[in-house]
């Protein structure tokens, strides 16, 4: 944390105490969301670039044919990885993903997996041969709330992912045969706790000022939750957060559906 951020922390905390935010948003207001679907459609079967305020994340979907998990022999496989690219922040370093990146990937993965958004049974090809869906999260500019940006971009990309043509046991790259079966839209909503108040979609400065964060991914049910940060929540705060998460997810789902 640089000195500027450190000094801003007090300012942000005092603002939130009086019900205001550093960028004049309401406590339960998301930053402006811009989604560019099929951003790199020349190669990737699916992709979306999201701008959430100053945050910029590119999610690409790749498809390959491989072996299923031994305990689920008749289902396709999905795997999610995240990379915090060094261009996104001076504190991100090159190298294999560390705990922050792994947390983002796992929380996004859980929301999609547990809501059964991808119909994995339809990705079965023949015995010992299934489609593998790779969700690659590429963080390009870190302006706070990377989990929501990644999760929203991931499901937007999946919704418009093309299936590569598969003939005579080979994938024909560049030719398509229908769409990836996706049944619902799980949306993660992260709230940060600053001086006993909960704020939706914390920006970077707010994240530094936050005691703790909670991410709740919902469809028509809750599908994934993650509390993070040194601080703690009270039971009634969690309950309130769940309510807000459902409400906000609906708004974002409408943005995605309108694309």
């Amino acid at each position, binding site marked *: 944390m640089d000195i500027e951020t450190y000094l801003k922390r007090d300012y942000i905390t005092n603002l939130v105490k009086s019900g205001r935010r550093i960028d004049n948003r309401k406590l339960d207001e998301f930053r402006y969301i811009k989604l560019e679907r099929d951003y790199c459609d020349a190669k990737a079967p699916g992709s979306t670039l999201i701008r959430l305020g100053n945050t910029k994340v590119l999610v690409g979907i790749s498809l390959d044919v491989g072996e299923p998990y031994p305990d689920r022999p008749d289902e396709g496989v999905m795997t999610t990885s995240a990379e915090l690219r060094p261009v996104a922040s001076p504190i991100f370093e090159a190298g294999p993903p560390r705990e922050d990146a792994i947390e983002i990937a796992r929380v996004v993965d859980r929301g999609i997996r547990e809501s059964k958004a991808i119909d994995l049974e339809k990705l079965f090809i023949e015995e010992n041969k299934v489609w593998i869906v790779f969700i690659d999260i590429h963080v390009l*500019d870190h302006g706070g709330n990377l989990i929501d940006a990644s999760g929203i971009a991931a499901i937007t990309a999946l919704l418009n992912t093309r299936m590569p043509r598969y003939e005579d046991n080979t994938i024909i*790259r560049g030719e398509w045969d229908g769409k990836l079966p996706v049944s619902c839209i799980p949306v993660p909503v992260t709230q940060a706790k600053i001086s006993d108040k909960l704020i939706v979609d914390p920006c970077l400065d707010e994240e530094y000022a936050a005691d703790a964060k909670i991410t709740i991914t919902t469809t028509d049910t809750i599908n994934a939750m993650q509390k993070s940060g040194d601080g703690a929540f009270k039971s009634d705060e969690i309950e309130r957060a769940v309510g807000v998460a459902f409400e906000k997810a609906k708004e974002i789902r409408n943005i995605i559906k309108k694309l």
Partner: protein
Amino acid sequence: MVKQDMKLIVDGKRLDGRRFDELREIKMSVGVLNRTNGSAYVEWGKNKILAGVHGPRELHPKYLRDPTKAVLTCTYNMAPFSVDERKKPGPDRRSVEISKVISEALGHVAVLEKYPNTGIDVFVEVLQADAGTRCASIVAASLAMANSGMPMRDMISACAAGKIDGEIVLDLMKEEDNFGECDLPVAISPRRKEIVLLQMDGKLTREEFKKAYRLAIDGAMRVYDMQKKTLIESMKIEE
């Protein structure tokens, strides 16, 4: 799907309709990222390249510091979804080599003596790749560095030439790169007319090399004009 024995030139035109000495469409912009000192985005045909500069900043570990100049490190990275078949994340031998030659080319024009004991890191992200990424990367890296305010003796511009179906052509795209006979990427310091990067693989006679080399430099000069224009535009104050 491209066949092994496909014709790359039909009726005197290339597969994408270009003339032999024609560049693909190129778009450039700078200052596209919030948390870097300088950044640039280049679309070159279907290539999409993002570059960002951190520094001059403290260099760790300490023994890497140079008391006479800044240490410039350029890192080239391809997104897993940037190519047809998913690329495993992390550096491979190809990207390490490209990082090295790009670092050396940029280091030739950056006034590194001005910031001794520091490190300057240039990160290049290939978001979509379609042949010629090293040229596009070096063009983006050089724009990002200029955008960061780092003193530079010159820009770096780059372009490739190659041979397809027996003809020398400019700026190969994917099919031409895969099934052509030769690829010759060249990066230049345009104001000083110096070659700062040159690689070649394939088969060329001495005459063909001369022709391809001149064509590549001519292409790089055209890219240089676009770079200059982009930087000047970015400095204009909006009313």
